[in-house]
């Protein structure tokens, strides 16, 4: 029986064979990263936890479809991106129909260390809500998760040019919106002086 020392390929083979140790190990190896990505993408810890449960249920159910055991990490992340995009799409639909279940406000903002930062984060997530789910995911993976364009293309199943186009689109629109909000730009300038460590 393998365990924490198993490589990704061995872990993937354990999952494909339905080994229970592999389920626990896969969770402990990848869930911390996926949870953080999900929280940054959704802006809510509670929603991130729900989404990540969905991700890993799908990973464990579909493990047998993994063709290359070496690519377990990409396999997990591709499920994560799919679930997160779908959650973002659901949110947009809910936003169009106010009589449906209300959109959960981002609670990530509450985790910021001070009042100004909380205000900034709330505004950032309000702007992110205006992007399409794909542009938003590309932006989050690139700017908050520091993934390369190649990695984003592989994880999201997009071409390099589509990722670059999506990134340019998201970055351009967000930059314009941020600069057009004098309060926000001012807060950031003040914040850079005061908050940075």
């Amino acid at each position, binding site marked *: 029986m393998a365990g924490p020392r198993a490589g990704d390929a061995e872990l993937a083979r354990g999952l494909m064979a339905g080994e229970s140790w592999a389920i626990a190990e896969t969770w402990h190896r990848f869930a911390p990263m996926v949870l953080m990505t999900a929280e940054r993408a959704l802006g809510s810890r509670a929603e991130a936890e729900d989404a990540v449960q969905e991700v890993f*249920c799908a990973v464990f159910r579909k493990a047998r479809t993994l063709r290359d055991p070496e690519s377990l990490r990409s396999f997990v992340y591709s499920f994560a991106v799919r679930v997160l995009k779908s959650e973002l799409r659901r949110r947009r639909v809910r936003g169009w129909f106010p009589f449906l279940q209300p959109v959960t406000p981002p609670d990530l903002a509450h*985790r910021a260390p001070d009042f100004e930062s909380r205000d900034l984060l709330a505004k950032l997530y309000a702007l992110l809500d205006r992007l399409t789910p794909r542009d938003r995911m590309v932006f989050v993976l690139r700017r908050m998760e520091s993934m390369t364009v190649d990695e984003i293309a592989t994880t999201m199943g997009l071409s390099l040019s589509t990722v670059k186009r999506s990134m340019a689109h998201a*970055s351009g629109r*967000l930059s314009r919106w941020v600069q057009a909000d004098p309060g926000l730009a001012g807060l950031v300038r003040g914040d850079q002086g005061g908050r940075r460590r």
Partner: protein
Amino acid sequence: MTPRPPGDDPQDAPALAALSELARDAVQPHTAGELDQGLDAVVGRLAAVRVRRRALRRWAMVGATAAACGAAALIVKVRSGAREGVPGREPSVVVSRIEGGTLLEGGYLSQSGAAGVKVVFNEGTTFQLMPGTRGKLRAVERDGAHFAVEHGTASFGVTPSRDHQWLVEAGPFLVTVKGTVFTVSWDSSAERFELGLRQGHVLVTGPVVNGGIALRAGQHLVVSLPRAETVITEDKPAGGSGAAAPEPAAPPRNPPVPATSVASSTVAAPPSGAGPGARPRRWAAALASGRWDRILADVDRAGVDATLESAGSDELFVLADAARYRRRPDLARAALLAHRRRFPHGPRALDAVFLLGRVEELREHGSAGDARAQAIVWYDEYLARAPAGPYAAEALGRKMILTNELGGPARARPIAREYLVRFPTGSYAGAARALERVP
């Protein structure tokens, strides 16, 4: 992920770059406890999906005739249920009132008086939070509600119903409820979980309680996470007072063998019907329903030595579990040692070595001598024979804790470092980091 190379994508406005950085830094990693809780939830969801799939597969195999029969049977069942006053389909569950407090955004219950908060549902179920308890109504759905006790004590009176399911979280533990009356406590600072069951039965899942523990009326479960200790005690039945009284275990034909004299107990002839052939099925049922005393009574009747010689590998584990939960560590130890002697190459041989360490730790409370040192010996053997085994993290964590207790931080620190390298998100990572910080 690799660092972002510069210049391969557009330049953000400085304000946007600063905002992105702020969002990145605001996210804190989940604690080991939260991760364990998440894993439990995923495993629970997978099990539910498997059950649904099995049911679907079964249905798919049934032909059109059988389906018609099933539909007819369902109609008959619903009608007879209605005649008996049991509705075929229960109405949706909704909160009918909240006494002594208000429901805040996010489901938190805010206490307005000094008597705690009471949530009353339309079908009669009540949740009562004791004063000072922090709790959250996570979800109310058609077929039940999901409640979380973050800190403190809460009582639950759940109206029995086949169609409803109630879930109560307390720290990393999940209590699955049908119809029952019970009290749950979670002390987040001491990481201590407590459940007292007055009526019905519940299933408790979470860390330490491997695979879940079924409790029945009158039982009291205490789990201490720092000690990795699970103890079930039983209330005395209150003079035959109805359904709440626990079902008494069959009286032993021989007087119970004192726990301290397990190894030297006499061999009694097994009574008819209690032979090895009948035992596995009965013990499996007793285990599933939390009737640990029934298992122990069987052993006392048949004689400890005779049972230890005739029981199979799984039975010895069941016996060890029952003895651990009922605070008979010597009997648990005897069962595990018997397993080690009789099944040295069996699939659970290494599990027995790890559990022997756990049992030695339990013995510490009731016996003289340094059982903790012996526990470390067992953990060392487990780690040497199964360095990547399923209990490796637990064995190394317990070894670290015990070494600290016996030899101080200086001796425990190398183990803490090894633990953090091998299991950086493990249950003992917090304790290991704390040890590293101790001067």
